[in-house]
């Protein structure tokens, strides 16, 4: 199980309070306590079932890495299951399993998180084990050599042998110049090859400390009990002094960037991304919520514009979507991706998408359309309460990227406040050609020398 790798991509998340649901139906109270050593503890009580999820989020991930050490955060995540001073390799997982628990971990660009879902009375088990590996990880050469092989297999599975995933990797590396988002979360194969146990030890010492972590518990538990246990198990772990994280802001893009990635694939694939700000990179957030709603207008459901006009209408695309992750730590991309129908080229699909963007720039969206997106946001904010895990994930992520968990409560109202004029404004302000990166993934030809194929490059 463990060691998932989250690549946030073409992913629109909606969350928070509802207009349909009444307040007593959907309690939304978060209890916060910060221990003396800086560990932040967040608790959300949900008594629907006698279960709980415990997540610990560290402020470290692929975007904290630099050239030559890419993939280090993720490999360290794997090693966190391979033994501590008091636990044999694999013993952590064994104890959780014997307690009926499910556990895993994931590494993103901006975070590394570990979680256990268990019957609620087992909370103490997960706390004891997480506190142990926060301070006493035992990095061993034998386990490292083996686990590095596992990660390389993971990379082959997820990237090398998946044409679209690999194209996305090249796309990001081309779109970003100075931002660390140019590197893949799992790391470049060469960097994995060059990784040493000493690199991991230093990374662990640098980032795994209570004042760099947030503990989030959601479920059938009392906040007071959680705070008590947190104090008992984590309270004695000393804080670490941190140097300021280098900002590594992306340099301005001064013109469109285009690339081609040839792959062993049967259909071409289009990737487009505009440089845009995110909640964490701006003072005033109106533009951010407008971009969020704009992504809904294009891609929020099967009545949204891209599917309506490009899949069902002109039938230039067999699939197409837009995505915007407003909750990343650093400025990011407003993304489009799609596969053209047979007989249409990626070039034609790109033109069709640009046409949709231009429409947003010239004409305000209708009230009906806007209301539909807002209704979906409101409903989704109730649906998400069906999952303790998702609720915990929202709090942990917002806190860890620097936005602050409190922002989740504002979401629905901020979305509702977005006007048609504001959407038109942000379309004109941000979705501009000079800030665009386009990658065409083209199938390699069947020819003997692998020369590029002609059939896919021309428009119909």
């Amino acid at each position, binding site marked *: 199980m463990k060691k998932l790798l989250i690549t946030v991509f073409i992913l629109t998340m909606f969350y928070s309070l509802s207009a*349909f649901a009444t307040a007593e139906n959907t309690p939304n109270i978060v209890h916060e306590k910060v221990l003396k050593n800086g560990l932040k503890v967040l608790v959300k009580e949900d008594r629907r079932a006698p279960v709980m999820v415990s997540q610990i989020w560290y402020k470290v991930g692929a975007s904290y890495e630099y050239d030559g050490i890419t993939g280090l955060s993720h490999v360290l995540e794997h090693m966190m299951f391979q033994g501590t001073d008091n636990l044999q390799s694999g013993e952590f997982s064994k104890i959780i399993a014997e307690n*009926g628990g499910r556990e895993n971990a994931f590494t993103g660009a901006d975070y590394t998180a570990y979680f256990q879902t268990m019957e609620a009375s087992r909370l103490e088990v997960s706390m004891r084990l997480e506190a142990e590996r926060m301070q006493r990880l035992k990095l061993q050469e034998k386990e490292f050599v*083996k686990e590095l092989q596992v*990660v390389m297999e993971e990379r082959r599975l997820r990237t090398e042998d998946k044409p679209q995933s690999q194209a996305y990797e090249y796309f990001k590396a081309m779109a970003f110049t100075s931002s660390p988002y140019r590197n893949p979360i799992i790391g470049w194969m060469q960097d994995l090859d060059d990784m040493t146990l000493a690199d991991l030890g230093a990374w662990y010492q640098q980032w795994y400390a209570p004042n760099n972590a947030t503990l989030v518990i959601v479920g059938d538990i009392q906040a007071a009990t959680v705070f008590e246990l947190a104090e008992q198990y984590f309270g004695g772990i000393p804080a670490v002094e941190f140097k300021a994280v280098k900002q590594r802001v992306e340099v301005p893009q001064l013109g469109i960037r285009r690339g081609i990635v040839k792959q062993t694939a049967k259909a071409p694939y289009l990737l487009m991304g505009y440089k845009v700000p995110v909640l964490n990179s701006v003072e005033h957030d109106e533009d951010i919520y407008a971009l969020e709603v704009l992504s809904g207008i294009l891609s929020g459901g099967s009545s949204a514009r891209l599917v309506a006009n490009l899949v069902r209408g002109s039938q230039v695309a067999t699939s197409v979507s837009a995505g915007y992750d407003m909750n990343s730590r650093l400025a990011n991309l407003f993304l489009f991706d799609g*596969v053209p129908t047979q007989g249409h080229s990626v070039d034609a699909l790109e033109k069709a998408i640009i046409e949709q963007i231009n429409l947003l720039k010239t004409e305000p969206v209708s009230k009906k359309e806007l*209301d539909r997106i807002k209704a979906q946001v409101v409903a989704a904010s109730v649906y998400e309460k069906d*999952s303790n895990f998702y609720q915990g994930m929202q709090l942990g992520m917002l806190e860890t990227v620097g936005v602050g968990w409190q922002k989740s409560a504002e979401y629905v109202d901020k979305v509702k406040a977005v006007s048609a004029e504001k959407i038109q404004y942000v379309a004109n302000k941000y979705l501009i050609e000079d800030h665009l990166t386009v990658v065409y993934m083209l199938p390699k030809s069947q020819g003997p020398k692998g020369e590029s194929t002609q059939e896919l490059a021309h428009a119909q």
Partner: protein
Amino acid sequence: MRSNYQIVTGVVLWFACSVVMAVPTIQHWKMTNGAHVYFVATDGLPIVDARVVFNAGSAYDGRYSGLAALTSSLLDQGAAGQNAQKIAEQLESVGAQLSTGSSRDFSTLSFRSLSDPNALAPAWAVFKKVLNKPDFPEKDFKREKQRNLLSIKRREESPGVLAQLALYKEIYKGHPYANPIQGDAVSVAEISLVELNNFYKTYYVANNAKLVLVGGISRQQAEKMAEELLADLPSGQKAAAIAEVDDLTKGTAIHLEYPSQQTHLMYSLPVMAHNDADKFALYLGNHILGGSGFSSRIVKEIREERGLAYSAYSYFHPMVQKGPFLIGLQTQNEKSDEAVSAVKQTLLDFIEKGPTEQELIAAKKNISGGFALRLDSNKKLLGSVVSIVATDTPLNYLNTYLKNIDAVSVEQIKETFQRRLAVDKMVMVTVGQITGEKK
């Protein structure tokens, strides 16, 4: 995200021992036209989930492989004179969600809405149209067919998908389960609207339908909603039973050369149907063998000992007729021989000696202690109830589960695996590149 955690799909397999947890009460009634309704009342969230299950999976495709999937995907693309756009707009303007899907055994429609009448009533009315009066418009039919054909072509971009298709083709030779759910390029090209309409009329009927409702509504509301949704469906006939699966007569190894860095390996044979008399022994045995992630032998041997794969697992996938027992992994091409030997050896050891007493105790603790996790949301509850009712499992299944799990012994697992898993008849499929130094 891909994890190493594989669970038997299609059946509900958990129970509480130390935890006092209310097992959901499944209410059941039959409508006058023959449709069965199952209802679980929940409180806490103003949400309604519903799923309608028809015995109308790809096993019923006949000579038009891919027909069930295409029919199902077109239901919401035009109904009662309203086009796909209008249907989507009506649902999404109240935040409701509707989706369709097909497996080899079943086709389903899944629905979610807020329980607020202002959302639920209009959304349910759209659901009714989609289910009762699909128009199968010519234009949408052509488009969806083309999309399916491209998706079929794109299967060749994935060594994992190719391995699974090759495996089913071999272990179900001569049986409808052998065909891909989506069909193949030739069969899909041959499908016309005539077949689609016939398929719909034959299988989307009350005697072949089961509705599961879960959510914050009363029994009275549930009855009313069921009537509204299904009362107009013609009774029709329950679908004929799917043919039995023949036992494999000899072991086979199939290799497909593919330009990937990894070789995908699948080692399999058909074993378990729903409600199999041996299911608890098989389930517990597999939990120990390769069904419980890092606690399982396959992960220990393949990943933890040898570092051969990121994902390695085994599962029983129970189906209406015998579904596959399957061990799977992916490893770099150079290591595929080593992986093949390690997988075979791990399985042979387990079959010969069975699990240890400690392994069985740990597995029982994991299953019973984790019981509450399997029913802790409306979404999971819906999935569990659907699994029970679609497979004609007794409705008290959850109530008796603890006893059944607890009763399984080491000896029983060993005996059952020896009797049911004919290792010499298993099929090994590998998809990847044969490297220089081997073969």
